[in-house]
Every structure is written in structure tokens, then in C-alpha cells.
């Protein structure tokens, strides 16, 4: 009997646990008094779960942010490289556009002068600092000859002084030895524009109340202009076309000072070039006489 009682007593807790489990499985039982027993366990479990979940989320977020930051850094470097590349390309485009614009104007000038001409690039300057000259990449093979006029769209550069098979040297308009027939554009008075002014000739002009003159090595003098001619400072001096190497009406310089003297037959007209000589890059060399105008 004792053995039977012991065996039945063993089943009692198991049955009770199974009953409680079945009881708890059904949602309808949650509001029953037994839910008060399970509530602290559930709350504790939920809090632990929440904390664990938060910690996991934090670690996962930190890791994903780190990974994302690494990617962003690489992306940033890539974007910066691309930006630098685009800036260089943009600068190149501006340079190309400026050059294309200059060449386009040079081409326009070539059509306007209506005579054989070749475009040339400036390679350098004179080997002696006493002269202001340019070295061009065109020579006899391209039809260039000594004495040919050299222009840019803004005005006259000078005249070819020396020429070889493949290169030529241009003496600037304001260098000693440059002589170009010219006239004052406004009043049409003609003269001869000569490069180089002896500095001692300018000594008397320092105290005449006028604006200070530029250094004598950049000055020219328009000679043989009659004393009563209408010439004032600021007038533009252009080629007169009386000599075959330059077409008429091309700007050469601006009048900076006019000296009238009763003792002189002619005016002293001092002129500065319109061109910044050092900034010339491409030029047009006029290699021949004007083409005859075709009859319609």
C-alpha cells in the first residue's frame, strides 16, 4: 500500500504543473488571479530583454556607423579627387576658350586685312635685354620675309627684322630702329612713327605740369606732324597704309604728350604702344601685298 501511495504522490506535482501550464497557455486566463504570480517574472524578463536588445542595437548601430563612416571617408576622397579633376578640366576649358577666342579674332583680322598672312606663335624673346623683340615659330619656309608687318587683333606688334628657314624675329614698334608710316585717327594728320626716344629729350617735359611720362624705352615719337595740326593727348595713332607692309587703320599707340614750339617746324608727339608687348602669344605675319578686289 505504501508503494502505491508513493507512486501516486509522485504524479501529483506533475499533474499540477501540467494543469498550471495548460491554464497559462490560454489567453483567457491572463486576467485571472494567477497572472499576478507571473507578472513579476514577465516584467523582469521583459526588462532584461529590453536592456539586452538596447545594448545589441547600440553595438550594431555603432558598428554600422563605423562601417558607414569608413565608406563615407573613401567616398569623400573620391569626390574630392573628382572635384579636383573637374576644376582642372574647367581651367583647361577656360584656357581653350580664351585661346579659341583669340584665334577666332586672329582669323577675323586675317580676313579683314585681305592679304596673304600666316599665324605664328611666340617662342621667346631676344637673347639680349637691350632689345625688345619676339622670336616666332614661322620662317622662310612659311613665306615670312624681313620687313613683314606683324599684327594681333588689338594692333601692331612690330616688323620682322631677321628670318631663318623656320623662325623669325620681330622688332617691336617701340624699339629703336622701328619706323612705321602712321596717322592720328581722329584728325587724319599723317607722320612717321619712330621707335625709341632719347631720354635726354624728355628732361624738359618733367616740369611742364603734365602727367608723368612712362619710361623712355617704351615711348615712340610721331614725327613730321605739322605744328598747327590738331593732335591732343589721348588720340589714337593708326597705320596710314602708305607703306605696303601694313594695311591702313590698324592701331599702334596712344598719344601721351604733344609739345608745340614756335622754334620747331613740326610737333613733338610722344606715343605709347596700345599692346602690352610681353603678353603677346599668337600673331599674324603679313607676308604679301593686298589681294585685288574681285569685280562682282
Amino acid at each position, binding site marked *: 500500500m505504501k508503494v502505491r501511495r508513493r507512486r501516486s504522490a509522485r504524479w501529483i506535482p506533475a499533474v499540477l504543473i501540467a494543469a498550471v501550464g495548460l491554464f497559462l497557455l490560454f489567453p483567457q486566463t491572463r486576467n485571472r488571479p494567477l497572472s499576478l504570480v507571473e507578472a513579476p517574472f514577465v516584467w523582469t524578463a521583459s526588462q532584461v530583454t529590453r536592456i539586452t536588445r538596447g545594448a545589441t542595437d547600440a553595438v550594431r548601430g555603432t558598428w554600422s556607423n563605423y562601417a558607414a563612416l569608413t565608406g563615407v571617408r573613401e567616398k569623400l576622397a573620391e569626390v574630392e579627387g573628382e572635384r579636383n579633376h573637374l576644376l582642372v578640366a574647367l581651367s583647361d576649358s577656360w584656357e581653350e576658350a580664351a585661346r579659341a577666342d583669340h584665334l577666332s579674332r586672329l582669323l577675323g583680322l586675317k580676313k579683314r586685312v585681305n592679304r596673304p598672312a600666316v599665324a605664328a606663335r611666340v617662342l621667346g624673346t631676344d*637673347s639680349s635685354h637691350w632689345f625688345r*623683340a619676339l622670336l616666332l615659330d614661322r620662317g622662310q619656309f612659311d613665306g615670312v620675309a624681313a620687313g613683314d608687318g606683324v599684327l594681333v587683333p588689338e594692333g601692331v606688334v612690330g616688323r620682322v627684322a631677321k628670318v631663318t628657314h623656320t623662325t623669325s624675329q620681330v622688332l617691336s614698334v617701340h*624699339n629703336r630702329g622701328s619706323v612705321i608710316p602712321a596717322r592720328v585717327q581722329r584728325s587724319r594728320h599723317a607722320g612717321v612713327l619712330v621707335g625709341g626716344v*632719347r*631720354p635726354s629729350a624728355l628732361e624738359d617735359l618733367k616740369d611742364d605740369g603734365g602727367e608723368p611720362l612712362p619710361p623712355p624705352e617704351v615711348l615712340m615719337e610721331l614725327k613730321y606732324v605739322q605744328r598747327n595740326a590738331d593732335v591732343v593727348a589721348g588720340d589714337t595713332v593708326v597705320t596710314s597704309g602708305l607703306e605696303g607692309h601694313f594695311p591702313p587703320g590698324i592701331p599702334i599707340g596712344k598719344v601721351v604728350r604733344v609739345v608745340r614750339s614756335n622754334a620747331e617746324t613740326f610737333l613733338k608727339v610722344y606715343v605709347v604702344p596700345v599692346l602690352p608687348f610681353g603678353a603677346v602669344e599668337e600673331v599674324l605675319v603679313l607676308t604679301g601685298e593686298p589681294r585685288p578686289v574681285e569685280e562682282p
Partner: protein
Amino acid sequence: MRRPGLWLLAVFALFFAVPLQVGLLPQILPGPWTPHLGLLTVFLGGFLYGEAPGVALGLLLGVLYDRFTVGDLGLHLLLLPVVGVGTATVRRLVPEMDLVGRVAFLALTVLLVEVASAVLFDLTGQILLDGSLLFRQLVPAVLVNVAFGAVLLAMAGRPRPGAAR
């Protein structure tokens, strides 16, 4: 091949002096502030290696420099060989010359060459010379050439034994 420095000067004179002088340096430095590479090369050639190399370098660079100037006179062909001979002769007469002495001698040489160039160009009507222009061109030319040449002389060190004989 016993004189690598001389061959270096010759190669520089033949291939690099004029292109640098007319092409590159004027873009970096204005007018008279450009060192006269031909003059400095001939000076170094004559001073360090004697009369014959000095004259040879002077003739070579004289022809090249005259080819790349609008001036009518063969001025460089006239002056540069004289510089080569002159520097070698002075070096032989004063063998123990320290760096300060060499720089002073270089300054004197540059000054004489520049004045001679200016006078000859003025006499032939190629430039209009007066005191102010001479001063404005000479001072920068002498200063820049002496500065540049002093560096070269310091780099070259003492002349080789037996040179300039």
C-alpha cells in the same frame, strides 16, 4: 672625359643656354633681371678650365646668341671669346683667389661686358643710351648675374689643379 664639368658646360652651352635664355627665363623674370647664361657659362669655362675651353665656349655661344638677337652687330661673337680668354688669364695670374675675390671678379666682368654692349649698340644706332637707361639696365643685370654666378662658383668649388695653364 677627364673633365666632366667642362663637358657639362659644353652640353649646356650647345643645347640649353639659348632656349632657357630666350624661352623660359623671360617668362619668369623681366628684362634686365634675366641672368646672361652665355656670359656665365663662358666665365666659368675660362675661369675653371683655361683659355682654350673659354675661347671655344665663347665662340659657340657667341654664334648662338647673335643668331637669337635682332641686333645687327655680331656683339656676342666679339665679346664672349674675349671674356673666355680674359677670365682664364686672370685666373692664371691670380691662382689663389677665394670665393669673395671670384665673385668680385665676376661682377667686374659682367659690368664691363654690359657697358661695352651698351656703348657698341649705341654707337651703331641700335639703342638710345643715356645715363638713366644705363643705370636702370646695368644695376639689375649686374646684380642678377653676380647672384646667379656666385651660386655657380660656390658649387664649382676650387679650380682643378693644373687648370688654366
